[in-house]
């Protein structure tokens, strides 16, 4: 709650009152998952900090507004995105495609960082694993549309399943360190496993994705393919985040011992979230392979993982839509402003990193809704 600007006196007293009541509620035994299951999800609903969020008043208020506004906004955004290639130059379309790919990665990371409270520093590993798998399938078997994507998702899930069981045993800072180490180890593997990954040169000459036997060559067609797949990924993550399972993940984020005491198998829940996020990141990697048609070890690297985390944090962890906005900002800085700085966009991103930590502790979504840690 610290660092929250004080409102007017009435607001403040209402807040303390609400907090007191919510603390009183904390003390009462409660049927499992009641608080978290009722917590509304989405930008509109999360306009209030945790203490007040649990209030019936705020739930009722949300119900009255209904999900109409966010739904309308989402529909408008989707329509705008779908129409974009009709108005944009090919370069802008390609940049937008990159943004969508990276946004899917960032949103999958947000499921870990924001929703489940698992700050992973190695999430790019599953993105890269998916990209390599999709590229390999495209080169050696087929690039007919859903297959490379599915291969990417499956590989991402497998890699996350193989490494995640160690990671989710750890808490707090250990989790940060472990995911960082795991990501870097997969990065090194990509660099040394020449026969499959092409080593430091990367996997080049990946054929275009094919739809009904026709290769997708124009930037606009690739864009629509990526858009459709990315929207499917966003929808999956959004549905998971607002399901009872997502509510349980939030509960684990806020108070794991209590969730365990309530009978939730918290470690299995976290493991499942880790694998799911890995699968979506792998799918994003599959889209990357289809769009760039080149996969390099850098796609698994520390910098990619750090930028994905930056996107999540700029956007405000836990909101999912914020992560997508953050991803757009990161890619714009790297690919549009970066070339004007002699390719040193990373420098600017590093500065953004530092600035965000000091100036925007809750991210852009935090400007809309404020919640305690």
């Amino acid at each position, binding site marked *: 709650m610290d660092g929250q600007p004080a409102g007017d006196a009435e607001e403040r007293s209402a807040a303390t009152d609400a907090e007191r009541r919510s603390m009183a509620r904390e003390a009462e035994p409660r049927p499992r998952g009641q608080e978290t299951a009722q917590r509304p999800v989405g930008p509109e609903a999360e306009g209030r900090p945790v203490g007040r969020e649990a209030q019936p008043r705020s739930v009722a208020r949300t119900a009255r507004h209904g999900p109409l506004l966010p739904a309308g906004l989402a529909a408008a955004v989707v329509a705008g995105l779908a129409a974009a290639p009709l108005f944009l130059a090919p370069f802008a379309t390609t940049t937008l495609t990159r943004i969508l790919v990276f946004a899917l990665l960032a949103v999958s990371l947000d499921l870990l960082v924001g929703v489940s409270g698992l*700050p992973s520093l190695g999430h790019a590993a599953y993105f890269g694993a998916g990209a390599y798998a999709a590229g390999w399938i495209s080169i050696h078997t087929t690039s007919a549309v859903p297959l490379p994507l599915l291969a990417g998702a499956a590989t991402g899930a497998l890699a996350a399943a193989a490494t995640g069981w*160690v990671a989710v*045993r750890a808490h707090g800072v250990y989790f940060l*360190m*472990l995911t960082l180490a795991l990501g870097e180890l997969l990065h090194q593997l990509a660099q*040394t496993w020449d026969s499959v990954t092409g080593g430091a040169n990367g996997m080049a000459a990946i054929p275009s994705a094919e739809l009904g036997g026709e290769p997708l060559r124009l930037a606009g067609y690739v864009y629509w393919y990526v858009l459709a797949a990315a929207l499917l990924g966003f929808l999956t993550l959004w549905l998971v985040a607002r399901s009872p399972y997502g509510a349980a993940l939030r509960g684990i984020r806020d108070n794991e011992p209590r969730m365990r005491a309530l009978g939730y198998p918290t470690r299995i829940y976290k493991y499942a979230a880790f694998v799911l996020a890995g699968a979506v990141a792998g799918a994003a990697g599959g889209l990357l392979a289809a769009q760039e048609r080149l996969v390099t070890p850098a796609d698994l690297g520390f910098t990619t993982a750090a930028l994905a985390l930056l996107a999540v944090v700029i956007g405000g962890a836990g909101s999912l839509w914020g992560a997508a906005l953050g991803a757009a900002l990161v890619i714009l800085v790297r690919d549009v402003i970066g070339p004007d700085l002699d390719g040193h966009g990373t420098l600017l991103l590093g500065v953004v990193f530092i600035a965000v930590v*000091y100036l925007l502790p809750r991210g852009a979504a935090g400007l809309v809704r404020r919640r305690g*840690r």
Partner: protein
Amino acid sequence: MGDWLDANLVGVVNGFAIGFLLFIVAVGLSLVFGMMDVLNLAHGALFLTGAYVGAAVVGGDASWGGFLGALGLAAGLGLAGGVLLSALTEPLRRRSHLDQALLTLGVTLVVAELLVIAYGDDPLSVGAPPGLDGSVPVLGAAYPVYRLALIGVGALLAVAVFVLVERTDMGALIRATVADRDMVAAIGVDNRLVRVRVFAAGSMLAATAGVLGGPIYGARPGLDATILILALVVVVVGGLGSVRGALVGALLIGQVDSLGRSLLPDAAPFVLFGSLALVLVLRPQGLFGGRGVARA
């Protein structure tokens, strides 16, 4: 056993050289975390700074003056960097580990990119000082003298740090702060100065390790991440905040890394990960970590 040792002696000695170098890097990371609860991801950037100082000052054909000058310059830069990082992370003390990690990650990106701007993308090599640049026969195999010298210097530094932390009043204060920060503050010790000093000393060690490791690793973009990961693995294996743990962990990981590369070149990352996983499953708080630290 004898045959195996003959065949792999070079790998074992290499492992010791890398192990001592890792100890110099990891001990700062471990103490900074143990004392201040700060995960300093800029630690690799400090090493990289040292490596580039070595490449710029020493270059390909080294002299003793250049090498010692580079060590001094790196030590100075490391000290300054440590004080700066300590000042940067101080306002974030009450925030989450993620915020500190992000801040230091940002610092890493900035430092690494500035070094690329200054020195370019190509790997640079650093020569060993004269007298140490040759090789000596070790059981029939030629072995670089510099790595043997590095083992000596590393062992000396390890002993010095060990004595400082385990046998002096200052060290007692450091260990007490690692064990229970709030209690040390509650009995009236103002440990802010100790914190800054440990941060500065740890950073200085990391930067000098960059120069010392120069003849082995050279200086190249991405080296910071490699070293940071190895140091993190060392710290996790050894236990956060423990000097003894950092030493044992570093020597262990040095061997695993070196022998893994020579015996199972394709599976080296798996061997490293496997040993990390094994330690975490058997002893989640690390080999020498106290339970309190592990819960932090």
